[in-house]
């Protein structure tokens, strides 16, 4: 079981902010696999899962963005009705609370991944070990 990483960037909720961030990633030829935006009161947090997360993190930091790198778990689900339900049912049965989530649909459209950030990644992974779940490996997101 491997952890995957999510990059979070602080941004004011204004036109052009997402553009500035994605430009940095585009120019470095970094591929975005999943992303989400949460905003309130004029600011927000933009989260990305990318193919080269360490590189992207370093780059954004150098460019002066407020950025953090957080652990996450990628769980495979079927890209069909009930796919998400099957996975979150297991998570809730283990008492794992999702702090934030996004979805990565693999290119084949045969399967998708639920990317979740939880309070304690290591502990959550430990409790999911026995379950019949497939996890996203870092080397799969290239």
């Amino acid at each position, binding site marked *: 079981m491997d952890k995957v990483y999510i990059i979070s960037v*602080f941004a*004011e909720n204004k036109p052009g902010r997402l553009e500035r961030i994605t430009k940095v990633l585009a120019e470095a030829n970094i591929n975005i696999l999943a992303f989400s935006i949460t*905003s309130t009161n004029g*600011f927000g947090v933009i989260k990305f899962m990318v193919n080269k997360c360490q590189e992207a993190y370093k780059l954004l930091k150098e460019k002066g963005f*407020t950025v*953090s790198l957080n652990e996450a778990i990628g769980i495979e689900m079927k890209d069909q009705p009930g796919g998400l339900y099957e996975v979150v049912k297991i998570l809730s049965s283990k008492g794992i609370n999702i702090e*934030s989530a996004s979805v990565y649909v693999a290119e084949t459209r045969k399967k998708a991944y639920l990317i979740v950030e939880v309070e304690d990644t290591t502990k959550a992974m430990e409790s999911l070990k026995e379950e019949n779940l497939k996890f996203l490996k870092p080397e799969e997101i290239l």
Partner: protein
Amino acid sequence: MFWNKEIECIDEEKLREKQLERLKNTIKRAYEKVPYYRKKLNEAQVSPDDIKKLEDIRNIPFTSKADLREVYPFGMFASPLSEIVEIHMSSGTTGRPIVAGYTLLDIEIWGEVMARCLTMAGATKNDIVQVAYGYGLFTGGFGVHYGARKIGAMIVPASAGNTRRQIEIMRDFGTTILACTPSYALYMAEVAQEMGIEPTTLKLKAGCFGAEMWTEAMRTEIEKRFNLNAYNIYGLTEIIGPGVAHECSEKKGLHVFEDHFFVEVIDPDTGDPVYDGQRGELVLTTLTREGMPMLRFRTRDITSIIRDKCACGRTFARIERIRGRTDDMIKVRGVMIFPYQIEKAILEVQGVEPHYQIIITRPQHLDEIEVMVEMSKETFSDEVKHIENLRRKLEKRIEDITGIRVKVTLVEPKSLPRSEGKAKRIIDKRSLHD
């Protein structure tokens, strides 16, 4: 450390005698040589001979910035232009600028008081003093320069600006004393870090920071960032420039060089003196200035006088750090607030860098304050709710301190304008006309 221990620790009675003698001379000189003063004194029916004791100064009319503007450029000079060897000028943000003229003796005295300031900060002839106040019409650069030269320190006349070079110089030359505005010092710390130079590894041991208002919390921040002793320096162009008052190692108020400047604090509304320890507007009179004697100049700076004995041994009275300006008190919904209060609140809510801007608007009939605060790397969380908590905490703390509800907006780091001189903290967008 003392530059001139004999004077700085002078017996109080002797000091008052000296002050009275010098005050009489100054008033006489102003009356005889400056038509503007003669007219004002005549109108107030005061003659220089009426000054018998120090308290009699209260009969002398105040001098305001407006008076100085009226006589632009040289109307306040008490020496012929051939005796004036240097000119400085205050940045005239409103109306005409104010011109100050110095004779050779005035420049000498300026060097003397600045030498006392720098010595209080620990400077000796073995030090390297980097002057990052602007050189030019502004008094900051030259004032510190004259003091450092008197001490015999090695002067680096860097002036303000070109921040990266400033930092390289500090590192390569081993600058030990830095003189600049406190906001510029913080900016330099930031730039140093960007350059990969850890500010604490510089050889700085002390800094003389002034020319703008700052807070005790900002002092702590600067001291921590650079690992130095940060001292408060006070002065103004109309009186001499920097060197009117400076903190000793106690850092509990700024000693006013009372042998050269007479200090009063008044109620800005009535003009009456307030009790020692009570806040009001600082009023200064020069006691030795030849080129441009200044009688009871209303500084618009808010402070109080401390007359208790100082542990450092100096007998000169102290003023507390400047608490505000009579003209940049912001009156919002009828309540007086000062930018330093907001700054204090931001610094208390830990981790948020002291970069902020206050924007006042009046969308309908009610004033609204928005405080823009830069997000810091240290407090960033990837959880929106944590950031929102921080924002609310800031709003609450500002309300606790000022009594006014404000809206706090978190903005991206380095998105607020940085200054290399005085920081522009308040943007008043209220339009009072329909």
